[in-house]
């Protein structure tokens, strides 16, 4: 088992709710991410799934250092990234890049594609103009865009092509990890397939790891080596490869899988209907966060919060149904 590339330990991010403009008082906390831990092996994909308000996007931002954690550690190659200053921060930037969801918002409409892709290089390295131009051409061909692309503007490209430009920009610094925040959600079906295949191919060729944040379970199954399910700021279940899909243990995971759209009209599935809606991250239920909506809730669930424990090998669950069932 190789050393993981990125480890996240007991990560928390609380946003304070303040009242007043001049003398602001904190009256509450939004616990967007509340004590999560996971690891991404080099060259593999971790899929982070959950519905709105679960904290997956916040987690992605924390990994990208766009937010500072309230507590907890993020390690890259074993080194705590919070202690990075100046130069080291630049090194981190070169190792971790991102592609976001909306292809129409992630490219500056006033910049040519060449400048968009070159920007990370210009800001973080001292490469000469010629070297930068060569690298831009290199990544352009890696993502399968036509060679005349660098001189064009974003509005001359379709949605799928824009995502390729965004991907090219993310690859420019040859990062070890790319955070993908719903990278294919806004794309047409056939284009989606192209981009997902491209991502898989690039991972094979370049050995880049991916943190894939998505809500579509079928996409996640296609792309990920391991999957973690989040609910209200916590990881409720995580497992490697197919395990999560073939043997879902946590009731929420089971509900999610039962709600996913079928791939054939003949698919018979027992549908699990969850009562109520996701409570906002401000009013977190006591004990297990999922217990008010859980169809297998026990008395213990409203009193004690279950911890994420390994049930067997890589499969971890945070649920009282399985507490103490570890190896």
């Amino acid at each position, binding site marked *: 088992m190789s050393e993981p590339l990125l480890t996240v330990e007991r990560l928390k991010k609380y946003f304070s709710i303040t009242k007043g403009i001049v003398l602001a008082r904190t009256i509450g906390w939004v616990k967007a991410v509340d004590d999560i831990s996971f690891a991404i092996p080099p060259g593999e994909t971790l899929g982070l799934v959950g519905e709105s308000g679960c904290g997956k996007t916040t987690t992605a931002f924390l990994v990208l250092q766009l937010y500072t954690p309230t507590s907890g550690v993020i390690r890259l190659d074993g080194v705590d990234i919070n202690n990075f200053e100046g130069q080291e921060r630049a090194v981190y930037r070169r190792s971790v890049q991102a592609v976001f969801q909306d292809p129409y918002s992630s490219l500056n409409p006033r910049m040519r594609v060449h400048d968009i892709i070159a920007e990370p290089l210009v800001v973080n390295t001292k490469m000469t103009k010629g070297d930068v131009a060569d690298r831009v051409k290199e990544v352009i061909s890696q993502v399968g865009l036509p060679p005349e692309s660098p001189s064009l503007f974003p509005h001359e490209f379709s949605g799928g092509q824009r995502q390729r430009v965004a991907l090219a920009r993310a690859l420019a610094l040859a990062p070890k990890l790319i955070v993908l925040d719903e990278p294919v959600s806004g794309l047409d079906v056939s284009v989606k397939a192209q981009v997902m295949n491209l991502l898989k191919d690039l991972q094979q060729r370049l050995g880049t790891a991916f943190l894939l944040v998505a809500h579509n379970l*079928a996409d996640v199954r296609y792309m990920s080596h391991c999957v973690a399910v989040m609910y209200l700021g916590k990881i409720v279940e995580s497992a490697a490869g197919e395990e999560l899909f073939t043997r879902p243990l946590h009731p929420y995971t089971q509900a999610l899988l039962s709600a996913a759209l079928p791939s054939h009209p003949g698919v018979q599935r027992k549908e699990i209907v969850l009562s109520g809606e996701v409570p906002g991250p401000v009013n977190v239920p006591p004990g297990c966060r999922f217990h008010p909506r859980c169809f297998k809730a026990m008395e213990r669930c409203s009193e004690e919060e279950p911890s994420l424990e390994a049930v067997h090998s890589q499969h971890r669950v945070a649920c009282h149904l399985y507490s103490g069932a570890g190896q």
Partner: protein
Amino acid sequence: MALLEVRGLTTCFFLRRGIVQAVNDVSFSVNTGETLGLVGESGSGKSITSLSILRLVPAPGRILSGTVTFDGVDLLALSEKEMRKYRGCQLSMILQDPLSSLNPVFSIGDQVGEGIVIHDNLKGNQLRQRVVKLLRWVGIPAAEARVDDYPHQFSGGMRQRVVGAVCLACRPRFLIADEPTTSLDVTIQMQYLNLLKDIQKREQLAMLFVTHDFGIVAKMCDHVAVMYAGRIVERAEVRAIFDRPLHPYTKALMSSVPKVEERVERLVGIEGQPPTLLNLPPGCSFLPRCPEKTAKCSSEEFPPEIELAGNHSVRCWHYV
């Protein structure tokens, strides 16, 4: 007997740069109590088709030819005044974004009641009771208390239910749903689709579901029509489309979708991009991207519709 029958519908947009044939000779029918899925990617013309049925095509678009027969009446031949009696009352449409479908400055009670006021002329307490009943019907909890609340006080899933109530207020017989679950979470989407199915069974609604997602088709539809570049290229019952797709586009599309039930080794995908509909060249519009093209396909004409066994029709030169 089909409740809605569309024959030869053609809608074009007249731009300075040329003509966009958004809907080109489209024909299909929907029976009472059944759901037809209109499947296609962006630019296929599916949304314009649904707008054409309700005669809500924005300028510079115009419906050029065809008939839309609803319960024996050709909607395209009516005057605007007569058409308004049908819209909202007999035929209704749920749009994609619940945030912009609801007016933020009116309470949900007002918005649900608007159609009732116009078509059924109810007022005061009678109106309010009907509205509350409708809200309960679409599953809004504590409807009596929330009828005066505003859209921003509801979550996305709830808002989409309110939109459903608005559309169903006058008990229409035909409902068009244009990608209504795109912005919803997975579990909320399931609940919403189940709600629509429920309502359909109870009211014997005929539904036209416009979507790009085959999962929705698998869950909701009885019949399917696949659109590409403004034309319907294949039409069949839902099982037939999944088990025996005939058109190369349909086949390619189905193998571009990952599955949640089993591991897919490699998605196939389709090369290139959906075509722009501006000044479309003659002949089969899928030809440039088709993985199964043969010599027959380079004809200057678009393949005619061939009807095969079991109500399965396709427009492809391979079957002529």
